[in-house]
């Protein structure tokens, strides 16, 4: 009989900053990304793309491409066996353009060849005759012509309410790119029976699988989508791009086909953050309380629907921010143009409006002669309040006041301008140190967690026991955020064992985990893991009439009644589908319970500005963030620092520049990304409050850092320069030149 020495606490459970299991293979260069896959006999694929933003396809001649040695297939719209359409929300996008191309870079033909070089040459050799059409590239014109994906109308409260202090503003957000370092890549392997296995970059393999099935007219069991190693996502991996092409080529040729987008192609091959134009009017009483907010929000969805409807809805629902107001009117338009399609990017609609409403709050504070944080405190939304736009009663923790108080209490840790060589424009002689102006700015944000508007949002996870410990099986995608860490931590704490690991399985072996987006996987797949582990432990304890489970096995008092190996042999496992509290679609006035949960964050930015050259150095971005329960503090810090830098990027450098529908800067030379020298110091306070439905009360943490960091930086630049700055990214000419010249 084994006698136990007393139960030890579980190592590697929740609340610890456990070291991620994929860290060592990634550090050694051994981790396999989609780009690194290789199978014997595989072909390489490449894509022929439209050089026009809008044109009629007169003819396609694949002959010259097929004539190249080593080319196995050149396929066009006519070769697609099924409906040939896809789309995350509405299948409106052709797998390959048929009669018309609607954006610059739209796929027109695909090829498979013996090697990558030959495939690319063949793709260029396809002769497409176009008749150019006038592209619609202005979102306001699209609105006027009723070329729209969705219109939103929100009306809440007394529409005649008026305040004594009024501020109006017009704001713009440029088109940001997710720019994950790993480009689109994948491999499709035919199974010899008319089906195919797809291994491709993704945030959501089950909808990839579904779109392949529907576009190619296959049966669901014929397509299996496998999670693979992925070099970042940030929203860019939610939509299908090369997935259907790969499956089509593999099924046509009977050979495995691999495809990897180069960086330039990646910029045209995935959706971007919606550029936005926003008109705002805030009215307050003399004490600074918001009396009425009116907004018109216009986002450019580009040529195809993607997630424009949901991004627009989010923008409208969060148009007022984390503030109380009982009289609201918001009108939103998601325009259809011939610009590149836009879709998901970290923050998903909440980013664009946050820049506008926080700019408005600062403007209002200025009009009232009030401290910007005090104005926000007076209007702070709290649990039990109604969201200003939708009227939804907030029934989970919403620590807006705590975020404000935490930010206000954080010491301003900055040295004199130029100390340590940290000047705008770098350490050289670019900036004259005595001309540098310092500014400080604040911003707050609110974001929904999980999918909204009545979407049946769920995640399935399976927990089983193996000789190596507990295994969490899931199709939830690890994009770098640390899901492989946190799901294992949840399983360890819940089961009471110290050995647990996550294994990814394909779409045929488990139901959907939903998308790795909307800050949702810790709550949704974490919730499924938590519940599966809880039930499994309970069933085992009940079966053995025992009172504890640990690494050794099942215990009744001090007696081991079943060893771990016995449990493994008996095949204990539990599969759970976890759903968040139900949501509903909006009524005709945009009212209802559309969201399952919310998170708030606040940022304080400190900048130095060279007003002559228009250069900005972001010295610090400090933050307080509502996390519910910090399951892995180091991972959260990583999300916060990374998210903040993407927000800084949108504030001062990141923009895809369009010229009549064409992207002019589709390279890493011309699309500026923040480097280590651009990274501000970050101090973060994690605010933990119990009450969310996530596992152990956890909330999603991925998006909030990106949302209010951008307006905080711009507020700091305004503080330093006195300029209005109604557009992000703020360009040097916006600061250094007179406004009419800058325009």
């Amino acid at each position, binding site marked *: 009989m084994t006698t136990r020495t007393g139960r030890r606490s579980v190592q590697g459970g929740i609340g610890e*900053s456990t*070291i*991620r299991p*994929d*860290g*060592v293979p*990634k*550090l*050694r*260069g*051994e*981790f*396999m*990304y989609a*780009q*690194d896959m*290789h199978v014997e006999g595989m072909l390489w694929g490449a894509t022929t793309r439209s050089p026009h933003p809008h044109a009629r396809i007169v003819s396609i001649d694949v002959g010259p491409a097929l004539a190249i040695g080593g080319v196995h297939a050149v396929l066009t719209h006519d070769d697609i066996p099924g409906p040939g359409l896809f789309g995350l929300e509405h299948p409106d996008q052709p797998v390959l353009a048929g009669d018309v191309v609607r954006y610059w870079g739209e796929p027109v033909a695909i090829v498979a060849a013996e090697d*990558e*070089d030959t495939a690319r040459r063949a793709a260029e050799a396809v002769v497409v005759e176009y008749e150019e059409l006038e592209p619609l590239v202005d979102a306001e014109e699209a609105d006027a012509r009723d070329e729209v994906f969705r219109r939103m109308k929100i009306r809440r409260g007394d529409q005649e309410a008026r305040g004594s202090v009024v501020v109006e503003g017009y704001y713009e957000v440029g088109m940001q790119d997710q*720019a*994950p*370092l*790993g*480009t689109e890549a994948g491999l499709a392997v035919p199974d010899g029976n008319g089906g195919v296995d797809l291994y491709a970059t993704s945030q959501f393999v089950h909808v990839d699988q579904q779109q392949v099935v529907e576009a190619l007219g296959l049966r669901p069991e014929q397509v299996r989508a496998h999670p693979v190693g*992925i*070099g*970042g*996502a*940030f929203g860019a991996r939610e939509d299908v791009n090369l997935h259907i092409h790969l499956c089509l080529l593999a099924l046509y040729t009977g050979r495995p086909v691999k495809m*990897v987008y*180069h*960086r330039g192609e990646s910029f045209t091959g995935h959706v971007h953050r919606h550029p936005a134009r926003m008109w705002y009017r805030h009215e307050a009483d003399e004490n600074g309380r918001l009396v009425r907010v009116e907004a018109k929000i216009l986002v450019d969805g580009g040529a195809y629907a993607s997630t424009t409807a949901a991004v627009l809805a989010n923008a409208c629902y969060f148009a007022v921010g984390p503030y109380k107001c009982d009289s609201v009117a918001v009108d939103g338009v998601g325009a259809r143009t011939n610009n590149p399609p836009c879709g998901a990017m970290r923050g998903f609609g909440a980013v664009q409006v946050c820049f506008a409403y926080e700019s408005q709050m600062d403007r209002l504070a200025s009009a009232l002669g009030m401290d910007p944080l005090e104005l926000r405190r007076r209007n702070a939304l709290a649990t039990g309040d109604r969201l200003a736009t939708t009227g939804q009663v907030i029934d989970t923790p919403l620590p807006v006041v705590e975020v404000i108080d935490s930010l206000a209490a954080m010491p301003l840790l900055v040295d004199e301008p130029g100390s*340590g*060589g940290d000047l705008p424009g770098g*350490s050289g002689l670019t900036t004259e140190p005595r001309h540098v102006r310092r500014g400080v700015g604040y911003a707050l944000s609110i974001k929904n967690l999980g999918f909204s508007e009545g979407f049946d949002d769920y995640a399935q996870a399976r927990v089983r026991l193996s000789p190596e410990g507990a295994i969490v099986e899931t199709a939830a995608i690890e*994009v*770098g*955020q*640390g899901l492989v860490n946190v799901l294992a931590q949840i399983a360890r704490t819940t089961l009471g064992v110290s050995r647990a690991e996550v294994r990814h399985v394909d779409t045929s072996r488990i139901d959907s985990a939903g998308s790795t987006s909307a800050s949702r996987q810790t709550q949704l797949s974490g919730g499924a893991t938590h519940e599966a582990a809880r039930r499994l432990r309970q069933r085992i304890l009940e079966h053995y009439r025992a009172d504890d489970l640990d690494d050794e096995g099942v215990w009744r008092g001090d007696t081991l009644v079943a060893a771990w190996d016995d449990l493994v042999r008996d095949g204990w496992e539990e599969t759970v589908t976890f759903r968040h509290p139900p949501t509903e679609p909006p009524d005709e006035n945009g009212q209802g319970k559309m969201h399952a949960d919310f998170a708030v964050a606040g940022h304080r930015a400190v900048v130095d500005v060279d007003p002559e050259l228009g250069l900005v150095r972001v010295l610090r971005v400090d933050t307080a963030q509502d996390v519910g329960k910090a399951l892995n503090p*180091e*991972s959260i*810090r*990583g999300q*916060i*620092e*990374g*998210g*903040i*830098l*993407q927000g800084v990027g949108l504030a001062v450098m990141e923009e895809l520049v369009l010229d009549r529908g064409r992207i002019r800067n589709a*390279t*890493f*030379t011309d699309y500026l*990304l923040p*480097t*280590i*020298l651009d*990274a501000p*110091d*970050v101090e973060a306070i994690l605010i933990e409050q119990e009450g969310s439905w996530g596992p152990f009360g956890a909330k999603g943490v991925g998006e909030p850092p990106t949302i209010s960091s951008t307006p905080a930086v711009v507020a700091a630049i305004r503080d330093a320069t006195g300029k209005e700055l109604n557009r992000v990214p703020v360009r040097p000419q916006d600061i250094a030149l007179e406004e009419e010249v800058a325009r």
Partner: protein
Amino acid sequence: MIIGFRLNGQEVTARVDHPASLLDVLRDQLGAYGSKNACEQGECGSCSVLLDGELVCSCLVLAADAEGSEVTTVEGVAPEGELHPVQEAMNRVGAVQCGFCTPGFVVAAVDLFERNPHPTSREIKEALAGNICRCTGYGAIIRAFEELAGREVR
């Protein structure tokens, strides 16, 4: 043409039919997938390798120019089964997220610490300014190397 060089201490040969980069040869012909291709133009540092001890972007090196050279990639910075102190430092503090930039940071940091075992924060940042990371915001990467440099970590 056939080129030969030493890759992580082993003699290798590769056939180069067109103006391939060293990165192309490493990945596509030699199966050394550790070095990553993210921008093809020397902006992101994901393909960083040491060429005769010099830190280069392998996407900018003509493969033919590696003839007779010693090339060290991420796979070769530490003996089999071990981690270089640079890798250990990054692993300890959560400096790896998606990991696509990680091999480039490892190689660039190995180069830095060989030249300068106790770099200042500024020297760390200057040395790694050619490596783009889209996930971490660089905070954990800076903490990893400040700790390794024996300096006070923020």
